[in-house]
């Protein structure tokens, strides 16, 4: 009977005890992806994530464009965090082409990528807030995000799709008053973050809904290869910025944020703590940054990569973001593989949702810091 159905379709008998629910891809509770959930009464018995609705073939597109042309389209999977997704690409291409980055550019990159981490995390936090019925937490981060976007706009000229990092440095130098403006806004933002703590993270309603739901144990977090806030909320201290410091992160003063609970509350709190650390990093980097100097190493036109390969990773807003670039001595990369945190964290959805109540699904799903567009690439 099932063989006559079109692919992807399935039949279900009405009198079956188990009911199948398709959450998404148009459902606002899931983003651009589908969760095929089977429920027994109110409890989820299985969950099958079905991504791919926004698959755009970034990896294939990268094989047709040269190393510089690849910059603006490779940030499209996650435009809110566009500096961090270009970061590993630039690091890998620099390794392949043998480019040295000027010291000032390294600091500017760190500042831009930390600002972008906050911009992404605020966007995610506002969605997390609205899905838990906390509309103040939707309004506040969206408003505060604009301040940081203004800073990035002053840096790069674009609100979200910056295309600011290039192999060899950054595209342009900072505007003249950037440092004091950045310091002022980051100081203000840090004050605002303390208010988030009071209104959202200490809110008893939020705590009731998220504490103890979707618990991921430390062993499972390691075994499933999760990354980012999911991993660090389960008690594994693994931050790429600390473990494999790139650019100037080893000179800067910050801590990697780890919680031990492994539940939805801890998973939603680690990105918040990361934002506080980002403020520290930005202020420290502004202090230590060379006040003048080159920000970009000029490349030869149409640089070639040699017969080599590079795998570089950074800590993005959603965890480790690795780029595997294979070059075959042509002006285009032979293969670009983007290994993103969202895709790697997707594997724990079936584990976390099994046995949960259906009503807890948004609290667990959004706490994974999952960005469907990035997972699909």
């Amino acid at each position, binding site marked *: 009977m099932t063989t006559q159905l*079109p*692919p*992807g379709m399935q039949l279900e008998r009405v009198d079956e005890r188990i009911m199948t629910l398709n959450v998404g891809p148009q459902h606002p509770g899931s983003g651009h992806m589908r969760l095929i959930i089977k429920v027994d009464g109110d409890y989820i018995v299985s969950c099958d994530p*079905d*991504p*791919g609705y926004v*698959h755009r*073939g970034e*990896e*294939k*597109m990268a094989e*047709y464009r040269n190393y510089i042309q690849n910059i603006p389209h490779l940030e499209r999977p996650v435009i809110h965090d566009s500096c961090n997704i270009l970061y590993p690409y630039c690091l890998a291409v620099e390794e392949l082409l*043998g480019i040295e980055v000027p010291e000032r550019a390294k600091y500017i990159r760190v500042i831009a990528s930390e600002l972008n981490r906050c911009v992404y995390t605020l966007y995610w936090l506002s969605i997390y807030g609205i899905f838990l019925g906390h509309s103040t937490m939707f309004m506040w981060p969206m408003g505060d995000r604009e301040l940081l976007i203004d800073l990035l706009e002053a840096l790069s000229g674009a609100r979200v799709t910056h295309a600011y990092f290039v192999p060899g440095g950054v595209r342009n130098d900072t505007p003249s008053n950037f440092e004091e403006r950045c310091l002022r806004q980051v100081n203000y933002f840090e004050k605002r973050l303390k208010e988030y703590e009071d209104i959202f993270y200490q809110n008893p309603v939020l705590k009731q809904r998220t504490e103890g739901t979707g618990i991921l144990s430390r062993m499972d*977090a*390691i*075994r*499933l*290869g*999760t990354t980012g806030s999911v*991993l660090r909320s389960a008690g*594994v201290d*693994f931050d790429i910025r600390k*473990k*494999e410091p790139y650019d100037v992160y*080893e*000179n800067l003063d910050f801590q990697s944020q780890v919680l031990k609970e492994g539940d939805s509350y801890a998973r939603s709190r680690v990105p918040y703590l990361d934002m506080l650390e980002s403020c520290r990093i930005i202020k420290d980097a502004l202090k230590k940054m060379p006040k003048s100097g080159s920000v970009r190493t000029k490349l030869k036109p149409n640089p070639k990569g*040699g*017969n*080599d*390969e590079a*795998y570089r*990773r950074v800590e993005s807003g959603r965890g*480790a973001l*690795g780029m*595997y670039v*294979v070059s075959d001595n042509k002006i285009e990369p*032979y*293969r670009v*593989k983007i*290994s993103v945190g969202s*895709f*790697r964290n*997707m*594997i724990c959805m079936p584990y976390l949702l099994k046995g949960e109540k259906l009503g807890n699904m948004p609290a667990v799903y959004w706490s994974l810091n999952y960005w469907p567009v990035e997972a*699909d*690439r």
Partner: protein
Amino acid sequence: MTSKKKTNAEPSETVEEKSHPVTEESKPEVAKKEESTLVPEPTFEKSIASRIVSKFGTKTVIGFIKPNRIRINTKKEDILDVASYMRDELNFDHAESVSGVDYPESKEIEVVYHLGSYSDPQLAKQILTLATRLPREDVPNPGKDSTRMPSLRDIFYSVEFHERECFEMLGVYFDGHPDNRRLLLPEDWADIPPLRKDFRVKGR
């Protein structure tokens, strides 16, 4: 692929690096950070690679040894043994990515596993690249032709979705994978696997 142009190392610096016992965990001096990134001294990486080669002999070939990156090439018949050794003895506990690379000229598809370790702090920087090459057929028939290899899902649980992606994008069938379904592509995709080199994007 084996050669690496890190020959511009200053000789004085390499001597200095060798003079004191360098372990991977030794603190990098802040003042000499620039030099230490320029001059690779991958002794720790060499020791890991030599452990693998001494265990498996000719079954494994060292692709390259760079700072924090090791590449081991192996045959698909031996990949389960090599991968279990890496997990059990070398403490690599998860896969960061599984990439397929198509080489139509040599009629091969390469599957590349990037392995990392969360539990061993010494290995936190390391990415172990485990690669194997499979035969490639000009007219692919995913799941039914000779482009297949054993799945590493029982060894590294984290490869589950990565291998599903590799199956649909390059037509590599993973024997023993419990769930060899499409992941990102639509269910009614009727063309050849899109990341093969002979799949042309329209208009290009």
